[in-house]
């Protein structure tokens, strides 16, 4: 199934001490990469050091490698190497493109038009709202949403896409056997079935703090542009931005409240003109000259009470208490109204007892 060239890369992926740079150095020693399966050249010693070199020599066994590949197949894990057809060429824009990507799910998504949505792991309700509306708009208009399967903005981006039947790619900072954070286990399963999860690391690699910024370059490389919805001063999303700028991707950011700690990162980005300011997903679609798809949802007849609530929420999102005062309704009627509207998808509940309009 894999060519010998690819097998050589799969073998190299077994060693934790090899990063993209070292793999590249090793490959440059061979005129044909498949030779590596026949002979392990001595100059490798200079790249990896003596101890690691003897490790590599000891562990080399073509049968072992084949059974390892079989175990990957059994786990439905596909390796997309830089020699394979499925490999997205856009990754080559990176300074150090990954040589191998372990994939679970729909590999063809790698070559679709991708857009990254990243941001704070602990967004405010504003960040949540913005993330979900932007993601929804982008995925409905044909973008594959890429993010990092972290908490907060990443999670919302993945979930919103799946909810709306869009396609999403999650790029992990560890192997598939160690989904981090563990809370996102189910989400990962879900993405695997309806999208794609990708990792540069073989399944048994544990996530480490060092790996996460490194994987951000893959997020940046896969996408045409990245959107930062909310980022604090030291958010990891700013790493992704660095990589994106480095390989010539477009960076968009949503402005936030100047008093909000959680928006310092994005606001600074905008101030330093490193990213474009966007106020709605239409701004991004405009930039790529995509005309937004008109949504033709059948409009359900609302009751009188429901209409009042919708009209109020259309102006701004507000708390239950404010709604109660402004609508002048009885609490029991308001409560049942809010449920039916949520079921119809017209409004959304936010943490802190707030409601927002989410329909068209």
């Amino acid at each position: 199934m894999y060519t010998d060239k690819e097998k050589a890369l799969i073998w190299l992926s077994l060693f934790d001490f090899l990063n993209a740079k070292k793999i590249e150095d090793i490959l440059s020693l061979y005129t044909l990469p498949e030779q590596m399966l026949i002979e392990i050249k001595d100059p490798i010693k200079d790249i990896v050091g003596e101890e690691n070199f003897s490790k590599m020599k000891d562990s080399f066994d073509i049968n072992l490698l084949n059974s390892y590949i079989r175990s990957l197949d059994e786990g439905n894990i596909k390796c997309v190497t830089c020699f394979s057809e499925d490999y997205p060429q856009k990754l080559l824009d990176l300074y150090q493109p990954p040589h191998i990507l372990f994939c679970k799910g729909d590999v063809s998504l790698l070559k679709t038009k991708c857009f990254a949505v990243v941001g704070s792991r602990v967004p405010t309700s504003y960040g949540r709202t913005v993330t979900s509306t932007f993601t929804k708009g982008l995925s409905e208009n044909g973008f594959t949403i890429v993010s990092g399967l972290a908490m907060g903005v990443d999670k919302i981006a993945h979930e919103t896409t799946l909810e709306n039947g869009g396609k999403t790619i999650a790029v992990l900072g560890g192997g598939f056997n160690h989904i981090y954070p563990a809370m996102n286990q189910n989400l990962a399963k879900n993405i695997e079935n309806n999208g794609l999860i990708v990792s540069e690391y073989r399944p048994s690699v544990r996530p480490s703090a060092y790996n996460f910024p490194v994987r951000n370059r893959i997020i940046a490389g896969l996408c045409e542009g990245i959107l930062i919805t909310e980022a604090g001063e030291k958010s990891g999303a700013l790493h992704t931005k660095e990589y994106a700028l480095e390989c010539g991707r477009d960076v968009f950011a949503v402005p936030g409240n100047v008093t909000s700690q959680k928006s310092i990162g994005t606001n600074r980005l905008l101030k330093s003109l490193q990213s474009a300011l966007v106020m709605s997903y239409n701004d991004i679609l405009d930039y790529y000259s995509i005309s937004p798809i008109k949504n033709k949802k059948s409009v359900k007849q609302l009751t009188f009470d429901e209409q009042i609530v919708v009209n109020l929420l259309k102006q701004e999102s507000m708390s239950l208490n404010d709604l109660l005062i402004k609508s002048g309704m009885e609490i029991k009627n308001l409560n049942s109204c809010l449920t039916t509207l949520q079921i119809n998808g017209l409004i959304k509940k936010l943490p802190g007892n707030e409601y927002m309009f989410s329909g068209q």
Partner: protein
Amino acid sequence: MLSKTLSYGLYGIDGFPVLVEADISNGLPAFDIVGLGDTAIKEAKERVKSGIKNSGFEYPTNKITINLAPADRKKEGTLFDLSIAVAILSASGQVKINENYIFIGELSLDGTVRGVNGVLPILISAKSNGYKKFIIPEKNLKEAGFISDIEIYAVKNLKQVISFLNGEFNISTIECSNFQDALKSDNNISEDFANVKGQASAKRALEIAAAGGHNVLMIGPPGSGKTMLAKCFPTILPDLSFEESLEITKIHSVVGQLDYNKGIITKRPFRTPHHTASQISITGGGQNAKPGEISLAHNGVLFLDEMPEYSRQTLETLRQPLEDGKITVSRANMTVTYPANFTLIASMNPCPCGFYGSKNGECRCTPAQIHKYLSKLSGPLMDRIDLHIEVDSVSFSDLNDKTVEESSSVIKERVNKARDIQLKRFFSSNIYSNAQMNHAQTKKFCALSKDSEELLETAFNNLKLSARAYDRILKVARTIADLDGELCILPQHIAEAIQYRSLDRKYWV
């Protein structure tokens, strides 16, 4: 030179008869008490000796042996002092006991009879065992007054008892107190929903909780009034019936938390153990298996402020009492079952710092911290809490608002009506509120119309409710329908009930 008197011991919240035998025989002066008494009983020697002497009677300088029968049963407390003293005086011929009195009381060194704990439960058990005449400390007069059809004599000191027994002095039996009067006399205004500004949604949820006996979890940032709301909750619970009141008083009497001046508890208890409370103090236990907070909250409210701060172990012990309404405390000495039928009201912040999702502050917790905080509440425990409500922080304009809020008595009327409907519904079964329905009963009494069923189904699909929410929603919807006086559960009732399941919703973290 042998004499016998009767007294009563306490076992849990029930009493058992104790025969106090006194024997005075020739020999070196000595005083022994046998019959498995605790230290307080051993020390009774000194109190009785001085008490007799200082009341002007003669303390026999012979060998005195006291036996507390049944001798193989452990006894505790000071309530046998009086009966021991009378038995000694009778054995030494200074008094004649003609009738079967039950003596209860602690002796002071000067012969005064002091009040003791547990008089009410003793009187109730003794009455059911057919005893008719009691001599009790004057201090316990009030609580004893609520037991009718028995003769109770309240005494001040040992001298009075002896002259009464000798027929030299007449004490009239105490008059029966009226429970309704006690209820009415206890009208000092404490908390009232009229004083809580805004928070309409929380108030509504508490009204539903009171009407259906549901447990409630309030989630909100610090300073949003969760504690105040909880404190008002007992004011909208239905008035205590006499039987309920006796049950509560019994428990409080045993642990000595009864107000001697009132005699009976006329208000539903509101217990707020601190989150550092040990598991034993919550469930009951200790050497003598005393009732814990959950039993003291019987027929009332147990309020756990900042619920995730309690130790996991403590919270898990609540599971069985929440289901059964009672708790069995087993210790080496004894195994006692205490009633523990309480409404649980818990409050918590949405995250450790308290500001997750709040407009007034920014949350600085990491997702892992929030997750850890929330995971303190186990699934089985959450299964027993029907209503989750989010409480907003209150703005200044709300506090300054001049509108008059509904008072507790108005809400209480509605609650009473809904309770009446439930009492009729569960007439043949042994439960009395919607919250207590089991699965089969839920199926029977919460049949849904087609509209309602459709609504519930779409809600489950679209709002991603967890499966455990299903029965809870039905029960709460039943209560809402009862408050509306509707026979069937209508779609709007279901819709409202779904609003009270916020923790089941996946938007949380």
